[in-house]
């Protein structure tokens, strides 16, 4: 156990010195990733709590601002992310089967879908910029009754979608790393933990969007 030299002969791929065996290492990594995602839930939770409070304080202003949300782009982006989760699952599956080429294909597809999301998000932000809906000194709002309240709601919109987009960018970076690692034959059917873990992260970021989309775009839109 403690003698690393003895273990070297039959060293399973990717096993680190302080774990007894690959199963223990995989369990630790998986639990660690889930725990990390719990911290992410708490991180976004602070903003969801603020959102809930201001939505209850200012329902009329909220209804007013929701007309400026681009539901079409939001809906397309939701579809894009759901598809990217699907391709992510397929890449995890193919790396488990040891299929290098398929893994790279699906990872690249996931990356492209993520980039499509970010581009569409940028288009949306640009619309807001043109309309002077970015909170701060240049903020303007058509309905003077809701000037201050709308600014707070746009602040929350940008904080929530902005931090989500930041997570997407980090995820895209991680997927690029995975593609390079796969191309260099770092993964096998026996050891592919990073793909599984980053897959979990990617699904989490998608799920955050699944909550953001109805809360920011759909509720109050028709009222």
């Amino acid at each position, binding site marked *: *156990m*403690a003698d*690393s030299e003895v273990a070297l002969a039959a060293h399973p791929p990717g096993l*680190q*010195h*302080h*774990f007894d065996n690959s199963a*223990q290492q995989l*369990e*630790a990594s998986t*639990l*660690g990733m889930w*725990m*990390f995602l*719990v*911290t*992410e839930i*708490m*991180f*976004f*939770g*602070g*903003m969801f*709590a*603020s959102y809930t*409070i*201001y939505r209850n*304080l*200012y329902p009329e202003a909220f209804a007013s601002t929701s007309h400026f949300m681009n539901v079409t782009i939001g809906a397309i982006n939701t579809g894009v992310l759901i598809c990217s989760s699907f391709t992510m699952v397929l890449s995890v599956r193919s790396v488990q089967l040891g299929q290098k080429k398929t893994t790279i294909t699906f990872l690249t597809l996931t990356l492209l879908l993520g980039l499509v999301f970010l581009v569409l998000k940028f288009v949306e932000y640009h619309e807001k910029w043109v309309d002077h809906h970015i*909170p*701060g*000194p240049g*903020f303007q709002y058509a309905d003077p009754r809701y000037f*201050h*309240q709308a*600014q*707070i709601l*746009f*602040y*929350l919109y940008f*904080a929530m979608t902005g*931090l989500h987009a930041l997570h997407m960018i980090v995820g895209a970076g991680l997927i690029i790393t995975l593609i390079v690692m796969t191309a260099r034959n770092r993964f096998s059917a026996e050891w592919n933990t990073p793909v599984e873990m980053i897959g979990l992260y990617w699904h989490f970021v998608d799920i955050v969007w699944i909550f953001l989309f109805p809360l920011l775009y759909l509720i109050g839109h028709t009222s």
Partner: protein
Amino acid sequence: MSTILQPHPHPIEEKTNYLNADYGWKSWLFTTDHKRIALLYLFSITAFFFVGGAFAVLMRINLLSPDGLFDHDTYNKLFTMHGIIMVFFFLVPSIPATLGNFLIPIMVGSRDLAFPRINLLSWYIYIFGGIFTLTAVVRGGVDTGWTFYAPFSTTYSNTHVILAAMGVFVSGFSSILTGLNFIITIHKMRCPGMTWSRLPLFVWGHYATALIQVLGTPVIAITMVLLGLERVLHAGIFDPNLGGDPILFQHLFWFYSHPAVYIMILPGMAVISEVVACYSRKRIFGYGFVAFSSLGIAVLSFVVWGHHLFVSGQSMYASMVFSFMSMAVAVPSAIKVFNWTATMYRGSISWDTPMLYAFGFIGLFTIGGLTGLFLATMAIDVHVTDTYFVIAHFHYVMVGGMVMAYMGGLHFWFPKITGRLYPEGWAKFAALVIFVGFNLTFFPQFILGYLGMPRRYATYAEEFHALNVMSTAGASILGVGYVIPMIYLAWAWRKGPISPQNPWKAKGLEWEQSPTPPPTFNFDKPPIVTEPAYNYSGHEEEQEVDIG
């Protein structure tokens, strides 16, 4: 026990351990060994402790005179920097990142924490956050108080709020990663025979701490992000003039920062459980109660934050619930105190230095905890809110509790960490000086607060002069008390007598099965546990039946 008279010519020094395995600077700065990372933390935390302490000294000097000796703006910055550095850069990482980091893998019988590289990363993040905060200090400081209350911090303060908030934001991730590492290690890395019910209470305490770190710290992170953005954009999210809600900031802030005070005391309780059992030569009384009271504190800590908002305009009904919950959280804390004293009852107690600190801890923590109940009572809280009563209360818990436990733990495991023994006489003397200095500093502040002296003021009314001078005198004694251990521990590290493997005849894997100081992978042969924790009586009938 009797320790000083054994200059054993044992060839321990020749043996390879984690300290003499490699001497290059790279072997320290790029190490993934949890023991070396613990030492990196130990040195950086000590540095921050003395920086934060220096601010406290300057504050006490200012309060020597009723008119204040410094410029009032300077005083505002002094107490702010003292608070930020002591809370986020000393107390939160103190015991978990040093003793916890060093001991938890050994105590559960593992070769390292589950994620050694993440452990190293957490130290770099901590240093990175520290650089932000120290930059804020060098460039002129912050004056918002460590609580960063909006809208003062977002709109009106003209100091380096964003730098300091970034420091808190960044260092929070180091705390999250440490907690995450502990949870996974405790779940997945226990050696054969180390069942949950045999875990040392040190590990249980850190498990509860880690839960709070993992669940609470992300909330302060997002709060600091919202605060920083608001300071740049002035969108008004926390500014009532612009339709924002400043109470929301307080809720978000205390949702982390109240559980955080349990991050700052649970590890101390964890240390005391080990020390009390060892120096009473008894199995800890009510093992299960002590273990689960840690979890109870962790859970309840998340539902009491509103007691910081009794006078902030929070709904009265919310205050009543929070008041009730705050009293409820005293129950598991009291369980621990009763169990420690019951452990000592009819134990064969020896008065070694770690035990002196444990005695200090139990007494001072009890005072700090009971005055916490005063503050949980709404009617009394309205009277003493933002007075020195509150200051005295939380210093009795944080300094009288946590720092005492930290010192006790450092002495207790000093032979384990360094392989050498510290001078017992000096250590006892320093413990006494710290105890006297501490009480002289903070007890007058209870009276000052009850008489109505507000906190965070650079000046005070003439009638408070005598008590303030007493407090400053106590602070200088306390300061001396902290410098003495620095000196003799540094000396003992180089020149102290070589320690045997288990100088205190203590129980636990770290003393019984791991060499002193431990080798890089902690154990010479794979550890195995065959008896319950703290089996000091050694009775066969107390041992559980071995399976197989």
